[in-house]
């Protein structure tokens, strides 16, 4: 028996595809724009490695269960800290005045919490809430993607990370239905980590985790192999990360027990991204290190990483 929708499935799929493609394109291009122009501070010692991927995966695996046991106010607090940290770290090089930066972050987060409690009675209220949330989600994904890649994460790491997430995504969406429960719980909650919009009675969206992977892949390709590789990455992110999962309900029935359409986006994107990584490695050879990228003409960011000179002082033993 087929489910019956107030809006035809093909129409929903097209709207969802449009939103997902816009999100994928926006996050990839903005992350690249940021990567080319802004240098984040990094710790004195430390570079991303395979063990960090394992730690990230462990955190991602644990999060849904954490969300399940925590009260909503605690989840909101957790999300406030997460968004505030990522935005403050990511944009302190862009907005030099820390007061202004924190004011902007505070207003964005505060407004979203306020709207989530007060303005959800109308479609317009939802739309304002979504727009404001989209800024936070894209801003956060761009910042975190750059934090990781500028911290030494390589295309190889991203490819394996995406593949592992795809397996988890399929398992959590289609086997244990954790994703469905989370989406149901989160929609309309303050700081729902989703990029989306509402048309009529339906919310359309794509999760911040998926967007983060697309941004990571695009930036890692650029860092590793330059412009041509990043173009391939963006096309893959938009078509396989945005369009394909959204349009697949037209072909395959993926309606869950709540009548929601939940597509594990990484199922479409990650395997192809992995193959693309192998192809690029074969075609272009070894990945550039961050140091090699910084020394190349692709880097147009002003040098902000030089260590300050030690303080002078009148001393003698």
């Amino acid at each position, binding site marked *: 028996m087929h489910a019956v929708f107030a809006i035809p499935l093909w129409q929903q799929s097209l709207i969802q595809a449009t939103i997902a493609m816009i999100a994928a394109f926006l996050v990839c291009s903005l992350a690249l724009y940021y990567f080319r122009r802004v240098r984040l501070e*990094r710790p004195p010692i*430390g570079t991303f490695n395979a*063990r960090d991927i394992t730690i990230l995966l462990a955190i991602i695996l644990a999060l849904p269960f954490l969300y399940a046991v925590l009260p909503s106010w605690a989840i909101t607090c957790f999300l406030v800290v997460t968004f505030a940290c990522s935005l403050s770290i990511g944009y302190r090089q862009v907005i030099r005045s820390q007061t202004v930066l924190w004011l902007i972050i505070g207003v964005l987060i505060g407004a979203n919490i306020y709207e989530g409690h007060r303005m959800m009675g109308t479609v317009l209220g939802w739309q304002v809430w979504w727009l404001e949330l989209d800024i936070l989600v894209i801003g956060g994904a761009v910042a975190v993607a750059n934090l990781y890649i500028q911290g030494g994460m390589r295309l190889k790491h991203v490819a394996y990370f995406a593949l592992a997430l795809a397996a988890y995504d399929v398992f959590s969406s289609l086997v244990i239905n954790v994703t469905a429960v989370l989406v149901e719980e989160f929609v309309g909650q303050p700081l729902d980590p989703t990029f989306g919009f509402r048309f009529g009675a339906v919310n359309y969206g794509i999760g911040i985790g998926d967007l983060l992977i697309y941004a990571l892949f695009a930036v890692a390709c650029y860092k590793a192999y330059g412009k041509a590789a990043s173009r391939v990455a963006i096309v893959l992110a938009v078509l396989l990360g945005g369009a394909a999962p959204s349009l697949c309900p037209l072909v395959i029935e993926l309606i869950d027990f709540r009548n929601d359409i939940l597509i594990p986006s990484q199922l479409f994107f990650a395997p192809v991204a992995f193959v693309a990584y192998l192809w690029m490695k074969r075609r272009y050879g070894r990945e550039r290190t961050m140091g090699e990228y910084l020394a190349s003409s692709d880097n147009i960011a002003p040098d902000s990483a030089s260590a300050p000179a030690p303080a002078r002082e009148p*001393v003698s033993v």
Partner: protein
Amino acid sequence: MFETGVRQVRFAVGMVSGRRFSTANLASLVNDAVATIAEFGEPGADAQSLLGGPLPDPEERREFANRALRRTARRLAQRSPFYARRFAAADGDPAKIDVAALRAIPVTAKRDLIERPGDFQCTDVERYLSTRTTGTTGKPAEIWLSRYEMDLWAGFGALASVIRDELRTTDIMQVNVSSRAVAATHLAAATCRLTQTGCRLVGVLPPDDALDSLCDGGATVLSTYPSYLAELLNAARRRGLTADDFKLRRITVGGEVLSDRLAEAAGRTFGVARVEDVFSMTEVIPISGRTCSQGHLHIDLTSGHVELLDLVTGEPAAPGALGTVVITPYFPFRECMPVFRYDTRDIARCLPDEALDCELSGIPATSPILGKAGSLLETASGNVITPSKLVKAIESLPTEPWPARYLAEVEEGRLRLTLPEAAISGYGETAAVRHLAEAGVDADLIVVADDQAAQLRHTRSDLHETSFGAAQALIGA
């Protein structure tokens, strides 16, 4: 990156708490630093602060020293028989020792170490490795080291070397120091293992053998004594070698006075911008010092306390005055056979009380080491002649007599300088006397045959080790 963050926190806690460091954590941190350089080409900003310095605020620096001195003194009072007696005799409460009260504790002399080495060994530490001073300035002292100390110093040295770009994974370090300098050679090898650098422990071989190794072996870093550097330089010039024949990017020397003239010539011939003059000493390991581009000696202040004491009064030397360098390595940087207020008898001049503007200005400084206190000479005019002044004056002679061989004595208030014939050959005695006077050494000159040169002044390059290739073949049994 996440694990590295945890390691850095553990490391920082170790620096602040004063408890023994985890050497495994330190080794992993070096590994992380090597990976960081491989990815980024350089460490992140503020990497120097990871090494514990500089402490720019004098008050903060004093408080750090006070805490470290108390910690060290408390342990020595409990674990070191020598210092338990010494603190008791000085009526000093180790818990109340600070920079100001430190002067109540008499300095420790090398003689104490030589006569009663067992009394210096702490009762709670297992001995692992013994090292001796080279003995070029007197009877050698034996120092026992623990396994922890060797791992710790190698770890710290490796971390500093990676962060300061002193050692790279692509480097090969050739070490031309005496194989009897056990701690130095072991540390060089252990440091290179951690930094993933090639290490060639060559010893003080005949210079031609070492040169072959430098040229053909692709060494990029050379560590040796100034006098042996001089021998290498002479051999290289004799063979017509130039900078193109070497791949060196760094030369570090220590243990003796390095003259500007020798440093400049060696830099030119071996193709390095600057010969680095470092300070280190077996008795006060792991304290070390670096010479900045302006010629100041900056001794590390995070692992030990450094004093410059007036040679006569024993009080802190006044600006411009000569003093002896007295060093106290802190616990937990030193644990097996530590010394407290060790009088190195190395002489340095206190810098004028003005702000430094060199690249290491955040670390306190003195002049470079000018020689040993026992080698100072004073003429009737009150002119104090340091070994550094003599070496620099002699090595700047146009005859380029490197390393300087001389005997300096004061007779009837006047300096008498004995030089080998080769030192003035083709230049003339009169011209040499004038040249030396212009360099601040007004002396009567005595010239002896060249075969007596090595007897005039021992240098560390005299600690030659023979090889079958170089030594005369023995015939018969």
